[in-house]
C-alpha cells in the first residue's frame, strides 16, 4: 500500500494536468507540422472537385465519408470520367488495402479498449496517424496517455483536413482554366507514391502499373487504372516469389 502511494505521488506532483490531457496535447503538437505538409494536397483535392462535373458538396463529402486523400482524388476523377460504381469501389480498395495492415499493427495495442472506441479509432486511421501512433506506443506511457495521444493527433488531422479541402472547393472554382489546375492532382499522387515506395520492387510495381494503365487508357468505365494496378501487383508478386525461391535453393 505504501509502495503504491510513493510511486503515484511524484507522477501526480510532476504533472498538474491529467495524463489524457498531456497525451492529447503531445499528439496535437506532433501532428501539426504533418498537417501543414499535407494542406496543399487537401487543397488540390478540393480544387479538383471544382474542375470536374461532380457536385461540390459530394466532392467535399469525400473528406468525411472516405477520409483518405489518394482515394478521394481517385473517386473524384473516376466519377468525373463516368466510371461505374463497382470500378470506383474496387479502385478505392486497391488504393487503401494497406489500411488492413494498419489495423493489424494497432490491434495489438488496442486489445483492451472498448469496442466502440476502436470503431471510432478505425474511422480516423490514416497514414500519418498510424505512423505517429505506432511510434508513441514504442515509447513508455500510460494507457490513457497513449490513447489520448492517438485521439489528439487523429482529430487534429481530421479537422484540418475538412477545412483545407473545403477551402479548395470554395477557392478552386475561381481559378482560371488556363492554369490547368487539374494537373495538380496527378502530381499529388506522384508525391504520395514516391514517399510510399522506398523499395526497388515497389517502384517496379509502380512502373509496370503506369505503363499498363497508359496502354489500357482506351478501356471503358475508367477500367484502365484498375487493370494497370493489378498488373503491377501481379508482376511484383511473381518476381518476389521467384526471388525468394532462388534464395532458398
Amino acid at each position, binding site marked *: 500500500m505504501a509502495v503504491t502511494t510513493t510511486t503515484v505521488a511524484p507522477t501526480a506532483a510532476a504533472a498538474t494536468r491529467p495524463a489524457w490531457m498531456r497525451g492529447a496535447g503531445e499528439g496535437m503538437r506532433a501532428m501539426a507540422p504533418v498537417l501543414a505538409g499535407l494542406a496543399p494536397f487537401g487543397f488540390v483535392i478540393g480544387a479538383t472537385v471544382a474542375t470536374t462535373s461532380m457536385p461540390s458538396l459530394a466532392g467535399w463529402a469525400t473528406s468525411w465519408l472516405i477520409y483518405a486523400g489518394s482515394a478521394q482524388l481517385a473517386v473524384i476523377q473516376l466519377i468525373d470520367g463516368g466510371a461505374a460504381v463497382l470500378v470506383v469501389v474496387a479502385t478505392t480498395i486497391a488504393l487503401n488495402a494497406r489500411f488492413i495492415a494498419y489495423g493489424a499493427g494497432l490491434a495489438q495495442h488496442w486489445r483492451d479498449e472498448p469496442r466502440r472506441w*476502436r470503431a471510432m479509432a478505425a474511422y480516423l486511421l490514416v497514414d500519418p496517424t498510424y505512423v505517429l501512433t505506432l511510434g508513441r506506443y514504442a515509447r513508455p506511457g500510460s494507457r490513457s496517455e497513449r490513447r489520448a495521444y492517438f485521439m489528439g493527433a487523429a482529430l487534429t488531422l481530421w479537422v484540418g483536413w475538412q477545412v483545407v479541402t473545403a477551402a479548395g472547393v470554395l477557392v478552386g472554382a475561381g481559378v482560371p482554366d488556363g492554369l490547368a489546375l487539374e494537373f495538380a492532382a496527378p502530381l499529388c499522387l506522384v508525391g504520395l507514391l514516391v514517399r510510399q515506395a522506398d523499395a526497388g520492387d515497389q517502384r517496379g510495381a509502380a512502373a509496370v502499373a503506369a505503363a499498363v494503365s497508359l496502354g489500357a487508357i482506351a478501356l471503358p468505365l475508367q477500367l484502365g487504372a484498375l487493370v494497370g494496378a493489378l498488373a503491377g501487383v501481379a508482376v511484383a508478386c511473381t518476381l518476389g516469389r521467384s526471388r525468394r525461391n532462388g534464395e532458398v535453393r
Partner: protein
Amino acid sequence: MTAWLAVVAAGISVYSLRAVLLLGRFRTPVTIERALVYVAPAALAALAAPAVLSGGGAAVAPRALALAAGVVVAHRSRSIGATVAVGMAVLWIATAALP
C-alpha cells in the same frame, strides 16, 4: 445521385478495410500481406500516368515533362507541396515554350 452513391460505397469499403482487423478476429494470410506492400504504389502510378494523355488544357509533351519533373522533385524533397509547385511550373513554362 450516382456520384453520392459512389462516394458512400467507397466510404463504406475504406472503413471496412480499417476496421476489419481492429474489430474482427481475423488474421491476414502471408501471401496477401506480401502483396499489400505493392498495392498502393501500383494503384497510385496507374491513376497518375494516364494524366499525360487525357484531359483538356495542356498538350502531351508538357504534361509528360511536368510529370517527370514531379517524380524527380518528389524523390529529392519527399514533399507533396514542392512536387506540385515545381510540376505545375514546368507545365506552364513548357506549354508556353513548346510550339
